[in-house]
């Protein structure tokens, strides 16, 4: 389904950034942002589970089950009533709770501060990591040249 509401698009992007962040880095950035965890109730305690990944036959055809991946999820409600959802790849309960708290604080009007303190650094680090691999891959690109054939020389 395609989403057009800018608020939802922003939340989608934020949750995706949090899900992919290295757990230790996510928790460290949040600890630096909020010296102590905001008061919250757990709507869903951190829960480790899996998601079945699907591929497509021939990349474009019928979906098939490729295998599962570990995911941890958590949902919180702040005293203000703002609800946050956290999903992170892997099995880190603290990271899932942290992601949920960050989402809730964003819903609670702290978007700009969190964007600067947490989301922008995470995005920049992910981009740098991606770039470091992409530039190495680019260096292994073959530059074909044609040998001069004897009968043409």
């Amino acid at each position, binding site marked *: *389904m395609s*989403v057009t509401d800018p608020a*939802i698009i922003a*939340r*989608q992007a934020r*949750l*995706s950034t949090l*899900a*992919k962040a290295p757990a230790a880095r996510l928790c460290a950035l949040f600890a630096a942002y909020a010296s102590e965890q905001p008061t919250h109730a757990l709507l869903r305690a951190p*829960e*480790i*589970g*899996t*998601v*079945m*990944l*699907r*591929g*497509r*036959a*021939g*990349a*474009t*055809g*019928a*979906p*098939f*089950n*490729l*295998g*599962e*991946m*570990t*995911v941890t*999820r958590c*949902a919180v409600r702040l005293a203000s009533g703002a609800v946050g*959802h956290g*999903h*992170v*790849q*892997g*099995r880190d309960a603290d990271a899932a709770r942290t992601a949920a708290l960050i989402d809730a604080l964003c819903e609670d009007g702290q978007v700009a501060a969190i964007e600067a303190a947490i989301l922008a650094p995470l995005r920049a680090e992910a981009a740098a990591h*991606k*770039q*470091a*691999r*992409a*530039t*190495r*891959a*680019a*260096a*292994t*690109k*073959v530059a*074909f040249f044609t040998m001069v054939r004897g009968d043409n020389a």
Partner: protein
Amino acid sequence: MYVAVKGGERAIDNAHAWLAEERRGDTGVAELSIAQIREQLALSVARVMAEGSLYDPDLAALAIKQARGDLIEAVFLIRAYRTTLPRFGASNPIETAAMVCDRRISATFKDLPGGQILGPTFDYTHRLLDFALAAEGLDPAPAPQVAAPDGALPHVTDFLAREDLIQPEADGPATPRDLTREPLDFPADRPLRLQALTRGDEGFVLSMAYSTQRGYGRTHPFVGELRIGTVAVEMEIPELGFAIELGEVVLTECETVNQFMGSKTEPPQFTRGYGLVFGQSERKAISMALVDRSLRWEELGEDNVGAPAQDQEFVLYHADNVQATGFLEHIKLPHYVDFQSELELIRRLRAEALGDQAREAAE
């Protein structure tokens, strides 16, 4: 038949204690960490994730450590752990066209858009032991880097599809059959076969693929494209009402381009085989693509020449190394009563046979 017997408890406990000691090896040698296995035995980790059917590099590394490097035992540990976890749902089908590629090569087009990217490959190495690696503490020089173009690399089969030269892939049910949730049932449709192959034993799938190359069923494949890289995993989250990216995984994908197909009503077209595997695992991905193509003989109107790689029951029932190990190794467990009855039978038959001989001699 198994018999309940007592008396092995202390022996078993002591065997496990010794196993733990042997696993650790010489305590004068530093212990392996999970991070070391994950980072430095990455291809073993990839294999355990693929055949264990669970993408989690740290868990796979732990399983390898616990299994003392026995990868099938490690796959068994991962499969067992997986069954303890709830499943939150299924991802949207992964877009491998959007893969950020570490490696991408084609054996069919030299000058394809995006080029031939070799990546961190063993190809072109001389397969000579590198004794420099035996001397520890030598970090390699950083690999050269050059500016990378933006944008995803198009699939090679897209070029062929644009001219209608390759068979289009048929869509299938949005929820494919899942052999981890229901018993394997035949005939198996292509999605189910692909699931069985991607988690199948690498050695078995390789040998099946090799047999088709050597003439037991003919597939005549070209590797249209082989790509290894990172893709995002996206899932609809019901409580949010929209999809988010849940993570990233490294996959290896192989698309083969196979011999023509055509009939009186349809002009000839290339056909396809497909391999997609967790982690960096191109031997497995290529093998999977060949076996996939071989198993498609019926839907592509080919003859069954009786080759093992055309027989879906044979391939799918024997591809799983955990099942195979379980059945194979169960024969080492006590079969005392079974064997006792065999012993008695053979003694009686021999006594009868010897008695007959003695009577014949006497007559």
